[in-house]
């Protein structure tokens, strides 16, 4: 064996050019695979951390009527079904030992109306929560850029910067928190260009989107313009409001007004009472009629301006419940366990993992990983072809030498092993070097503490810090792929070399 390695190694050195070409391909392939996997794993891990800790929790509970699991970012406009039995679910969750904490929330779309007749209504994605509970569930997930966050029990809305920029593009209104003045540095590019003519607004009228059009348009006072700590590309769509206002806007009926979910028929009747009845029809009538006067607030909003403390808010309607699991609980276990309980108790909801709940965002890394694997595989395929070609030529060139070895007593196996060793040494040395360099790069990058405020870059980082990750599974896959390449590439040349006969030692013309 030592002899085989010695000869193989010296042959590699002897044919430096060939060895270098093969080696370089193997080096690049394994470097690319290691770094690529590292970046993607980091992205995956970052996304998980940031989505789980910043927005959705580990598991999301949605109505069993909900058609798709994807409830984070579904731009098709599919509404999220209401959950009307939160108290029951709350009890079930409290009884589960693997549940760490949970937060019920309303989450749906609304139309953002404007007093500008020429403007098209924009969309606002609403997240209705008890803000104190929200902050306890997702600590430090957001900060106020302008204005402030909610005071306890306060009603109103917190608009993310991204949503404000979009709202401006639709409605030509620049939102500023109540009592605040315009901060030029925070203006969007479009807004900056129109600085002189900019129209400011410290409130926003939203019309909840609801299957049976039982929603109301409701004026929300802007308390703050916020930025999520990270991934504003995703989270920045969602304005946060108190759950009471959310329910009114969506026509779910505030618990403080009614304490219970009103039957559908009654709901419709009640809808007729709303002052902005005409707002349900046609685009034009969606505009609040008088730009000067503030639009008439919905009666419910007035009634709920100060919610009585003793009313059971939790008895009202939600759309989802975010659940955080105790450390070490697997998503799949938690989901199947919860679903078992929900079915047994006819809770009419189902649990889904954060990955499924975040739809494209969740599967993005899998897709990218698949593409990387396909790309590297393609590279390796080219490598295999080149290696096969080079080694076969080498075998043929060395026919007299190999034939002589056979003639003076080397077994077929010896010649075969010699060729396998040459390929194996090449992939070990060069592939190994590529892997090592990749591993060093992947481990070094987090130390550089590269951060980005750019939304798209953040998406690639999976958060605000670029933190590639070397996972064991990736290492194993890389090394397996490398060995596989070696083996496949060596098969044919080995057959050729093994087929060389002792008689070939004698060059006959």
């Amino acid at each position, binding site marked *: 064996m030592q*002899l085989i390695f*010695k*000869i193989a190694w*010296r*042959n590699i*050195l*002897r044919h430096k050019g060939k060895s270098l070409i093969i080696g370089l391909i193997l080096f690049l392939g394994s470097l690319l695979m290691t770094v690529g996997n590292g970046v993607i794993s980091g992205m995956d891990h970052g996304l998980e951390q940031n989505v789980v800790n910043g927005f959705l929790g580990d598991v999301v509970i949605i109505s069993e009527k909900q058609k798709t699991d994807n409830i984070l970012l579904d731009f098709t406009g599919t509404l999220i079904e209401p959950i009307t039995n939160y108290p029951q679910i709350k009890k079930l969750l409290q009884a589960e030992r693997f549940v760490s904490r949970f937060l019920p929330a309303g989450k749906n779309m609304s139309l953002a109306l404007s007093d500008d007749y020429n403007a098209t209504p924009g969309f606002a994605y609403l997240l209705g929560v008890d803000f104190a509970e929200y902050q306890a569930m997702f600590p430090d997930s957001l900060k106020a850029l302008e204005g402030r966050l909610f005071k306890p029990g306060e009603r109103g809305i917190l608009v993310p910067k991204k949503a404000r920029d979009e709202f401006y593009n639709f409605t030509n209104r620049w939102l500023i928190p109540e009592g605040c003045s315009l901060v030029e540095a925070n203006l969007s590019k479009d807004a900056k260009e129109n600085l002189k003519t900019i129209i400011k607004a410290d409130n926003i009228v939203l019309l909840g989107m609801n299957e049976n059009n039982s929603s109301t348009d409701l004026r929300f006072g802007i308390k703050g313009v916020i930025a999520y700590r990270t991934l504003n590309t995703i989270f920045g769509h969602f304005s946060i409001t108190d759950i009471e206002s959310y329910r009114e806007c969506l026509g779910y009926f505030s618990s403080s007004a009614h304490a219970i979910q009103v039957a559908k028929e009654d709901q419709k009747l009640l809808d007729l009472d709303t002052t902005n009845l005409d707002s349900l029809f046609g685009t034009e009538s969606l505009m609040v009629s008088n730009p000067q006067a503030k639009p008439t607030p919905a009666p419910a909003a007035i009634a709920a301006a100060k919610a009585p403390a003793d009313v059971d808010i939790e008895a009202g309607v939600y759309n989802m419940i975010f659940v955080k699991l105790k450390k070490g609980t697997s998503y799949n276990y938690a989901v199947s366990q919860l679903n078992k309980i929900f079915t047994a108790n006819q809770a009419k909801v189902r649990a889904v993992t954060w990955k499924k709940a975040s739809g494209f965002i969740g599967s993005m890394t899998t897709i990218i990983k698949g593409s990387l694997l396909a790309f590297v595989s393609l590279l390796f395929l080219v490598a295999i072809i080149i290696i096969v070609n080079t080694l076969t030529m080498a075998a043929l060139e060395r026919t*007299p*030498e190999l034939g*002589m*070895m*056979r*003639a*003076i*007593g*080397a*077994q*077929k196996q*010896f010649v075969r092993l010699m060729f396998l060793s040459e390929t194996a040494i090449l992939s070990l040395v060069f592939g190994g070097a590529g892997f090592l360099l990749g591993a060093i790069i992947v481990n070094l990058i987090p130390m550089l503490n590269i951060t980005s405020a750019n939304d798209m870059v953040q998406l690639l980082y999976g958060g605000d810090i670029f933190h590639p990750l070397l996972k064991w599974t990736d290492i194993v896959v890389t090394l397996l792929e490398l060995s596989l390449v070696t083996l496949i590439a060596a098969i044919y040349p080995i057959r050729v070399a093994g087929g060389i*006969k*002792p*008689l070939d*030692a*004698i*060059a006959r013309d």
Partner: protein
Amino acid sequence: MKKTAKNIIEISGLTKDYPLGNTTVNALRGIDLNVQEGAFTSIIGPSGSGKTTLLNIIGCIDTATRGSVKVAGHEITGLNDKQITDLRLHTIGFIFQTFNLIPVLDVLENIEFPLLLMKKHSGAEIRQRAEKLADLVGLGEHVKHRPAELSGGQRQRVAIARALVTSPSLVLADEPTANLDSVTGGQILEVMRQMNRLEKTTFIFSTHDANVLKYAIGVTKLKDGVITAN
């Protein structure tokens, strides 16, 4: 013909046909030949007479079409590739016309090669034996050179040392001096003869060269695939 010594080679009725297009070339047509242990014998004959073919079959690197070939007591026609390779390794040494050394190994390593394949001796034993043979063939000064750094004569000396390192019972050399000038060729034959005497190894070599012939002790004449004189 004395019958005192044992025969290392016993050939009877050996024919070799090469298919060539639609016809067949009868390279050997019924050879009967015995070679005694310790012989230093030459096979001569005009080009195409079958010298190489005969040596290849004796050396177990080619197969007979018909007939029986016994090398060191083994009937070689019935052996599989692995057994035949072992037989070559342990009982036969080869010296090729074109030297055929392993280019990436130095002189000493080339000489050691068959011993390493045998896996019978310790590293130190192998080294010792190889050094001794390098000395015997007059390459003691050049053991660290690679084949490319040697002259033709020196390369053939390496080949002789390599052929003898395993102490084979038989060394075959097909025109070992054809690629050398006559002076060097003579020296190579001297070395071979010396080895024959020292190690009691049987040598069979083929040649065209009348000069070379004078070193031979026995001569077998071939013509058109048959033995014309022995």
